[in-house]
């Protein structure tokens, strides 16, 4: 029996158990149940996993029909807005954590699932940091499916060229290494910011390291008084640190002209020494010129004397929420219970190459040693810094996104970017009263 087939057999056996508190017989006898399910993984490998998961659940629960629809990441952002405006909210749907989900919660478009999650079968299922991301005011609003975090991936061969045998421990050691690489004629970091989301991964992490956490959280949620909103000097400092990557020649030239994918292809071809990548990208590295052992990774180093948190990882879980308009929330939760069960989680990682958020689902049988170590790092992190563009209000995010590109060109200054961020935040705060 092949590994994948074995996984499927395990899933079939576990389906009934994973149904959790909802018993299929009860609902099936009463009336047929139809659920709508919207997510953002239409790619062939990903959609196959979800299609088979839906089929398996329907087979185990006669009378239940799940109508699934998948739209790619970028169009999903437009589609979900249109759907929300129409009021035809899918019973189960994907959202990004942070402010993105909070806005739906405030508008009453997300079901509080705290009492469902108190059931025994949910206990200890997820890494704490991933479940915390779905909590607002102590209540749970979502179920994580996958976990992701950013790490600096490095080329061991190019590190060896400058005598570096291990990752830098802190910021001064990191910048010294960058200078050393540059001096040796190696481009230290591959970076493509043509798609602006890449910029806020750096910026969000640096802000977390340089701005006091209570200030950051109050600013992000627009609870800081107007006269102090986004005025902490740590913000300008963080943007200065980010711009320094370009001005010191630590990034490749013209990052604004390259997409993240193009920069990654160059890094995989062995041209640059490092690249800031997501854990979900690790699956593709062994098949490149770097091979299985030619690379390593480390979290963005701590900045000594930084007034923020140095022990957080930038990243976020991805997962699902249930609509309050769902007529069968018990069935919806049973489906999510099944989807995030350990056998399904293992299958998710096997099929999609993405790390499941379910503890014990990512093993040496379906993931590389690097992915496993990344999961361990997330487990031991004191928390996560969510993606900046989904953790702040969308207009504030737009100001950061544009500013991140401005600083990679010739026309932007950290203070100028923060002035625009503050202006956007003030306007939103005023409108929200």
């Amino acid at each position, binding site marked *: 029996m092949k590994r994948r087939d074995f996984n499927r057999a395990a899933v079939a056996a576990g389906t009934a158990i994973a149904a959790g508190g909802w018993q299929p017989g009860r609902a099936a006898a009463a009336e047929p149940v139809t659920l709508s399910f919207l997510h953002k993984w239409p790619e062939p490998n990903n959609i196959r996993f979800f299609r088979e998961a839906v089929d398996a659940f329907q087979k185990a629960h006669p009378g239940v029909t799940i109508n699934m629809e998948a739209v790619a990441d970028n169009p999903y952002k437009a589609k979900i807005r249109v759907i929300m405006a129409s009021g035809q909210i899918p019973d189960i749907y994907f959202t990004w954590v942070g402010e993105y989900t909070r806005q739906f919660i405030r508008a009453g478009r997300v079901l509080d699932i705290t009492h469902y999650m108190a059931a025994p079968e949910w206990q200890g299922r997820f890494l704490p940091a991933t479940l915390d991301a779905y909590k607002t005011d102590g209540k749970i609003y979502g179920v994580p499916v996958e976990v992701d975090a950013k790490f600096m991936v490095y080329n061991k061969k190019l590190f060896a060229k400058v005598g570096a045998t291990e990752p830098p421990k802190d910021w001064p050691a990191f910048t010294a290494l960058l200078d050393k690489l540059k001096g040796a004629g190696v481009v230290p970091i591959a970076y493509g910011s043509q798609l602006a989301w890449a910029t806020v991964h750096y910026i969000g992490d640096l802000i977390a390291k340089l701005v006091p956490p209570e200030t950051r959280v109050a600013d992000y949620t627009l609870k800081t008084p107007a006269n102090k909103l986004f005025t902490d000097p740590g913000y300008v400092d963080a943007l200065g640190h980010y711009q320094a990557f370009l001005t010191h020649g630590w990034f490749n030239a013209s990052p*604004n002209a390259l997409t993240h994918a193009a920069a990654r292809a160059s890094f995989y071809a062995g041209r640059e020494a490092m690249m800031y990548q997501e854990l979900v990208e690790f699956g593709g590295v062994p098949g490149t010129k770097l091979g299985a052992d030619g690379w390593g990774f480390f979290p963005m180093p701590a900045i000594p004397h930084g007034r923020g948190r140095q022990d957080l990882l930038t990243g976020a879980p991805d997962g699902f929420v249930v609509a309050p308009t769902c007529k069968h929330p018990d069935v919806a939760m049973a489906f999510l219970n099944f989807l995030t069960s350990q056998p399904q989680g293992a299958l998710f990682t096997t099929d999609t190459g993405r790390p499941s958020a379910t503890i014990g689902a990512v093993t040496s049988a379906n993931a590389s040693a690097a992915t496993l170590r990344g999961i361990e790092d997330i487990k031991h992190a004191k928390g996560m810094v969510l993606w900046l563009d989904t953790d702040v209000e969308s207009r504030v995010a737009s100001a950061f996104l544009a500013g991140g590109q401005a600083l990679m*060109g010739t026309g932007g200054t950290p203070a100028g970017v923060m002035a625009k961020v503050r202006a956007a935040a003030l306007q939103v705060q005023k409108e929200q009263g």
Partner: protein
Amino acid sequence: MRRRAIIARLAPYLALVPVLLFLAVFLYIPVVLDFAYSAHAWNSLSPTWRFVGFGNFRELLHDPLFWQSLRGNVLYAVVSLIVQVALALVLAAVLESGVVGIRLSAFFRVSYFIPSIMPITVIGLLWQILYQPDVGLIDQALHAVGLAALAHAWLGEEATALPAIVAVSQWQWFGYITVLFIVAIRAIPRELYEAAAIDGARAWRSFWHVTVPGVTETTVLMALITIFGAVKVFDIVWVMTGGGPNNASQVLGSYMYRSAFRDDRVGYAAAIAVVMFMICSVVGAAQLYWSRRRAP
């Protein structure tokens, strides 16, 4: 008999009903609704709409990004008028003048026309590769001919991003409009050219005094289509830069999309759509007025 006559009278109207319904549902009603949306502050999650009257338009007046986007459309329109209308007309006249042989002329016509039938996403991705700094064909060609100083990170620099996109649009549509001009030129009576030749008119005079007046209607129509295209341009910008870097290639269409779906300000986005509609309406009305004045 009477019944048959009534049916015969109603038949044309009944035939028009499906089309009218289609237009009403997908064009006229949305246009009317857009005006209503633009007078409100609301987003996809708003439980209620807040009436702001002309508030969104007042905000537009003070929004530097709106003006920057509008400037992008103006640049798009001006360059398109020069390249897609004026130069396309000249090229069409050259291809029809017999300077190049019939076969070569056909080859050029097809070559110029092909980009217009390619999907916009394919074109966007293709040119993204061509515009790559250093490794892209454009920069490599500049290096090869000793013009390395002119090499740029075309889509990555704020100064060159929008002009680079505008250039791609010219490449895509130039041939299409050239073919339309060729059709118009062929409709000009040959006797006029022969008479001009007998009078001693050379190629340039013949072009200026016979071809240009002969294709006036087509020229006006092409200018109108080009301006409309420049006002509502969105796809090529979105595919190639998403309006970046730092909003440098933003046009009204991309800014409207961002306002609606990224910033979640549907009322504000509707106001931008109204401005685009008004620009197109004014240009269209001017053309109509001008055509009627010229009509015998």
